[in-house]
């Protein structure tokens, strides 16, 4: 089992912490995991992205150059990361903010109105969790239990209520189907 994931969006959309959450959950499931951020000079522009690997084997490179899954949370990310996706790979699009459509036909695409769903649950801050939920539902790569255990480790200072909302968002996201 090997899952290379690339998550991308604006700074402030919780891209970084979503990635860490995946890695943490993978670790709880006794998988080999790695997380790697885009950092530095790119930050100035206001975009953020990170690589996550969850694997039954040792992780070679933590930089996921040919992802199995790409999650794009904003418009500019689509153009940048769609081409990297493996043939047959999964592209999860936050259709609340992304209007463009992918170009490729050799991939699987799921549209999720992350912001809308998150808002319905209570706050757009958890749009990232909706996307993660979609990822889990569509790939089965990680169990809800592991993620739930991982949540308080990643958001150390978050109130239980907020964590609860996160779980709701994950579950809601998990209902996503490939379009």
């Amino acid at each position, binding site marked *: 089992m090997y899952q290379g994931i690339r998550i991308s969006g604006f700074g402030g959309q919780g891209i970084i912490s979503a990635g860490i959450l995946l890695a943490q959950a993978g670790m709880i499931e006794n998988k080999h995991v790695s997380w790697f951020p885009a950092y530095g*000079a790119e930050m*100035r*522009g*206001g975009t953020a992205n990170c690589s996550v690997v969850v694997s039954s084997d040792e992780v070679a490179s933590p930089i996921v150059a040919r992802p199995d899954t790409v999650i794009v949370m904003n418009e500019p990310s689509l153009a940048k990361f769609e081409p990297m996706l493996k043939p047959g790979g999964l592209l999860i699009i936050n259709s609340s903010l992304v209007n463009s459509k992918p170009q490729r036909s050799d991939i699987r695409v799921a549209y999720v109105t992350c912001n809308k769903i998150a808002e319905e649950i209570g706050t757009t801050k958890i749009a990232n969790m909706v996307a993660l939920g979609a990822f889990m539902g569509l790939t089965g790569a990680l169990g809800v239990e592991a993620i739930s255990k991982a949540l308080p480790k990643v958001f150390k200072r978050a109130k239980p209520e907020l964590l609860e909302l996160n779980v709701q968002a994950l579950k809601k996201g998990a209902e996503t189907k490939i379009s």
Partner: protein
Amino acid sequence: MKLINKKPSSLVDKPMRYCPGCGHGIVHRLIAEIMDELDIRERTVGVAPVGCAVFADEYFNCDMIQGPHGRGPAIATGIKRSKPECIVFSYQGDGDLASIGMAETVHSAARSENITIIFINNAIYGMTGGQMAPTTLLGQISSTCPAGRSVAVNGYPIKVCEMLAQLQGARYLERTSVSTAPGVIKTKKAIKKAFQNQIDCVGFSMVEVLSTCPTNWGMTPVQGARFVDEKMTPIYPLGVYRSPEQ
């Protein structure tokens, strides 16, 4: 209707990579306008620092050089002595100029190198993500003084203009701020004078510009501007610290 603020031709026409509300963009525009007004673009060589303004070498439409962290004054010295007919300026942040580059700053002033230094004091290390600068205020939080700058661990902020004013070679020193539009206008005047001095072979000129780093201050740009006025200016009073007329 007429466009009253044409983009200066000394600035390359492309969006800048600085964060929203960052003072670097303002000062870049001012320098470019001055190059236009003094008609020196074709004989100006700018030195870009290591710091967020490393990108200055992309934005100024004149010959540019980017060198090691803090060594702008030495690089500018090398250029100016080799090509006295050029106008040479060094653009530096507070980490660059007042921390690692302190010796180069003091000595270029002592030698009264006929160069112009634009010193952006934003009380933080912007590019590396918000570590303490020599100019960070007491009590101010940064990623390397997470409990706030304390005298016992980190010592006192350095007032660069005040210190350099003790050097005979420092011919023109002024501190301004770009937190308000009138401040921007004053800053432009000061920087223009610092360039004019070089044209007139007056010697070392430096303008210290109080600027913002909303990103690393954890503030909105508007809050940042207020921070400059309310917190920084009392510690770093604006004004002329040395002038060639003195």
